[in-house]
């Protein structure tokens, strides 16, 4: 589904601030893979997502999505096939527009001059009802009135309104309170399972990294130092994971926000 071959990205090359964020990274994802990603501070997790989503072009290497070479495709073209959620719940929806209008944008059905049909509205209602947050009765309200958790849930709904080929979740529950985070996570799991979306999720919760998904990657200094899946992964504890990280990276996992439980 996703093929990264030998991608590299250096920021501010040739200056004192030079930062090699990703170095010669290769990765292959099979359709339906749900990958959790953990790593130390500045390991290149977000850079990896930015490279895949097309926020910038990589310095070298190539990126293929579902057999299509997207290495030089601009972000908005890739976004037709890639859904993305950020840590900041305010980033994924337009606060001054209503819930219905936001969903209509995300649904993207029909031509440029098409209006929201009654059918669309019904579909939006049904999907919103799945969130179990009462948003289906607030479709005409501006999104700015929603709480962070509600907005993140809505963003998730928007990102999967047209099921993407690849879903990128960049610590999308980190800014939410534990209860809401749990809820958003559950919705994530349901949506991903329902449409069998290939998913990559950055998390700083070690427990979550092992419990969710089918495969876990650990990153350090711009590369993947650990890649476990299948049987090897199923019996793993957080402690095993930390040890494996030490073996792979040659140092302790250093992340000031990491949650071990």
């Amino acid at each position, binding site marked *: 589904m996703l093929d990264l071959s030998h991608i590299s990205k250096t920021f501010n090359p040739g200056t004192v601030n030079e930062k090699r964020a990703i170095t010669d990274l290769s990765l292959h994802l099979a359709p339906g893979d749900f990958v959790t990603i953990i790593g130390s501070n500045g390991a290149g997790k977000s850079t990896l997502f930015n490279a895949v*989503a097309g*926020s910038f072009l990589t310095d070298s290497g190539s990126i293929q999505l579902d057999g299509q070479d997207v290495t030089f495709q*601009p*972000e*908005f*073209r890739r*976004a*037709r096939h890639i859904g*993305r959620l*950020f840590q900041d719940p*305010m*980033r*994924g*929806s*337009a*606060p*001054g*527009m209503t819930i219905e*209008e*936001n969903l*209509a*944008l*995300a649904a*993207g059905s*029909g*031509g*440029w*001059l*098409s*209006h*929201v049909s009654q059918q669309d509205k019904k579909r939006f209602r049904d999907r919103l009802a799945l969130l179990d947050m009462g948003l289906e009765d607030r479709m005409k309200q501006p999104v700015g009135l929603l709480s962070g958790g509600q907005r993140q849930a809505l963003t998730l709904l928007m990102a999967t309104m047209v099921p993407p080929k690849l879903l990128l979740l960049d610590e999308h529950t980190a800014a939410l309170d534990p209860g809401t985070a749990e809820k958003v996570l559950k919705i994530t799991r349901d949506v991903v399972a329902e449409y069998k979306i290939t998913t990559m999720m950055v998390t700083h919760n070690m427990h979550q990294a092992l419990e969710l998904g089918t495969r876990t990657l650990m990153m350090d200094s711009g590369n993947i130092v650990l890649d476990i899946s299948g049987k090897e992964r199923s019996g793993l504890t957080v402690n095993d994971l930390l040890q494996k990280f030490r073996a792979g990276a040659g140092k302790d996992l250093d992340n000031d926000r990491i949650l071990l439980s």
Partner: protein
Amino acid sequence: MDPTALLAVGQTALELGLICSLTVLALFLSYSMLNVCDLSTDGCFTLGAAVGAVVAAAGYPLLSIPAAMGAGVCSGFVTALLQTKLGIDSLLAGIIVNTGLYSVNIAVMSGSSLINLNKADTAFTMVRSLLRGTPLENQYKTIVAALAVILTVAFLTFFLNTRLGLAIRATGNNPDMVRSSSINPVFTTIVGLCTANAFTGLSGCLMAQSQKSAEINIGSGMVTIALASLLIGSTLLGRGSIFTRALGMVLGAFLFRLVYAIALRMNMPAFMLKLVSSVIVALAIALPYLKQQWPILSRRLSHGRAAKGGV
């Protein structure tokens, strides 16, 4: 003021308000929706006036309207191109285009800074001859302007609720979101500015034809006047559907002209218009900010007094 004079004041305010409300609606699209303060508005208004006047003077009064709107589209396209494809800040892009348009406008008017339409057929004279003999004959100016405003409001209500319109609104409302979505912000900005400037051009065209002349300074200060109207309008009808808000823009333009016309009647000299509009814009933008700052400001003041009192 006697009633007939008052009526005349209202009449003038209505005419001018309606014509200018087209520019306000243009800014409603670019400033309120796309969040771009389009400073090429002055030049574009004059461009519309110049093109409309030249085409009407050449004997094509009907063609003058689409021609002026087309000229506006071109001007908007250049502004949009500068800020999306050439990395020029949106305010600066507007200023650059505005400056360039001064020469363009004089060139359009064949090197002169004034075109007289006293003998030419215009959209207004055409409607007047249509209405000859009916009771509405003397209202022809208002009718033409109202027709243009109704069509523009209807168009905006339709357009801003289409998928393209939603994409344009999202571009202004949350650029971060749009950047990581399948909407191309370059495309939405270009479409938005072209559409907005078409209305600015139309507004200038109607203004020139209603006062039977186009001169190079007809649009100067227009952006401030329109912003003042826009801010008045959104204070009155700032919430609700696009239709309601668009009506608010028209109402704002009318009220602004009404206040101004009354002030003129009270012997305020005509050259004060621009100062008045500047003050309105500054106040309208500053007041919400000051209101927000006021608690801290008042606390500091009373704190200072208390400290002095304690000594």
